[in-house]
């Protein structure tokens, strides 16, 4: 392996970003997916559509709006400046926020499906046994939706590792802060450093295959007869 110090820094930064985003998306995505799976509100469909938007939008649309929103005249930029935090573009927290938007459906959708698959019955049974709402969630929902959580975590993590367009548009390519693996590969190719690009690109290819293999191997076998 011919990894330079910059390559290793980009690798570490990418893992840090994907890890942070996955943890935060679990915290945000679990209640959101629960609400989407259980609520009969007329807002379920609009909210589900908004959550799914990053699946169909080009990263340039997301990157452009995030850049404008983070700017001094944008809604997010106005808030962060008022709080004395400065602007979020070109910072690691800014990258985390943008990546959460970008990877949201990859966490929320598997969780929603897992929650829907549980159905009402086990929860009603638990309630008759005097299990409180929190108790029901941790002792009934969590074990039953285990596979959904694994899929959501793996896909959320992997999709953040694979992010490029949004990072390129709002990251500013700062070593150790916003220069993630996908951008580092792009820079190697632009600078005609194909050997280094191959090492990183090949590594990512292998990583992505293993991740998807693990997800598919973890699914229950489907029988068609």
């Amino acid at each position, binding site marked *: 392996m011919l990894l330079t110090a910059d390559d290793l820094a980009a690798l570490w930064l990418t893992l840090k970003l994907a890890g942070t985003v996955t943890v935060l998306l679990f915290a945000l995505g679990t209640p959101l997916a629960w609400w989407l799976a259980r609520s009969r509100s007329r807002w379920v469909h609009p909210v589900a559509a908004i959550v799914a938007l990053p699946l169909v939008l080009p990263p340039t649309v997301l990157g452009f709006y995030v*850049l*404008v929103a*983070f*700017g*001094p*005249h944008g809604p997010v*930029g106005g808030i962060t400046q008022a709080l004395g935090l*400065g*602007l979020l*573009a*070109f910072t690691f927290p800014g990258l985390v926020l943008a990546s959460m938007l970008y990877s949201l459906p990859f966490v929320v959708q598997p969780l929603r499906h897992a929650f829907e698959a549980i159905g009402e019955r086990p929860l009603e049974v638990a309630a008759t046994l005097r299990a409180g709402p929190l108790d029901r969630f941790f002792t009934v929902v969590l074990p039953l939706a285990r596979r959904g959580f694994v899929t959501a975590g793996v896909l959320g993590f992997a999709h953040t590792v694979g992010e490029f367009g949004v990072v*390129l*548009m*709002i990251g*500013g*390519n*700062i070593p150790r802060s916003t220069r993630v693996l996908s951008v580092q590969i*792009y*820079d190697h*190719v*632009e*600078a*005609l450093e194909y050997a280094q690009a191959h090492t990183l690109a090949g590594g990512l290819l292998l990583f992505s295959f293993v991740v998807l293999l693990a997800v598919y191997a973890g699914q229950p076998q489907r029988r068609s007869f």
Partner: protein
Amino acid sequence: MSMTARVFRCLMFALALTPLPVVAKESITIAAAADLKFAMDDIVTAFEQAHPADTVQVIYGSSGKFTTQIEQGAPFDLFFAADIRYPQALAQAGLTASAPARFGTGRIVLWSATEDARKLTLQDLAKPQFRRIAIANPEHAPYGVRAVQALKAAGVWASVKPRLVYGENIGQTAQFVQSGNAQVGIIALALAVNPALASKGGYAPIPDTLYDPLVQGFVITRRAAHDPLAATFAHFIDAPAAQAILRRYGFAGAPPAGAH
């Protein structure tokens, strides 16, 4: 058969008999460095006015990326680079049909969209009010290399470096400043003179003596060796109309002779 259906059938029949247009419309595709965005748009407009039968398509990006793409067989007929060394490298690899020709000199300026940049100097960048300073990526963008040279020559490199953000090319660098996410940036004069940018905050030229000359060069690629339109366009760059546009965007003049 109803009347409508009959009319419809007649229409379809007439359509089928209509001959396809056989006018041989010539077109070429140009890869141009991002600093040429406004200047080349004007040159192409002037060219198409003079040659109404022809179309010229321009794709803007970084010179390094275009060099790679042409090596890999990208369908560009001409290549206008921000640094003549890129077309020279392609010529050495036997991928060109003309000798790399100089068409101007690129210059760098300080530009801000949020404050009055007209009196700014590189020394001012040491001030902490400039929390983010945008330059093009010096690893593969010629304007980024020159920006780093100028910052070092001005003695502010150590102070500025931790606050730098890197645009993928000079166009994205300008966009970081335009959106206000970077308070100031070092961009191409050819972009800063555009009214849309110059009206915001203004710009201050960086002295030529602080960085190596940015000799702009273009070349006809090998695939267009026998394309008369590519040759005509290459010729047009020397015409007074194109030269006037290049002057207007600040590309004129001999490259600076270095330190005096």
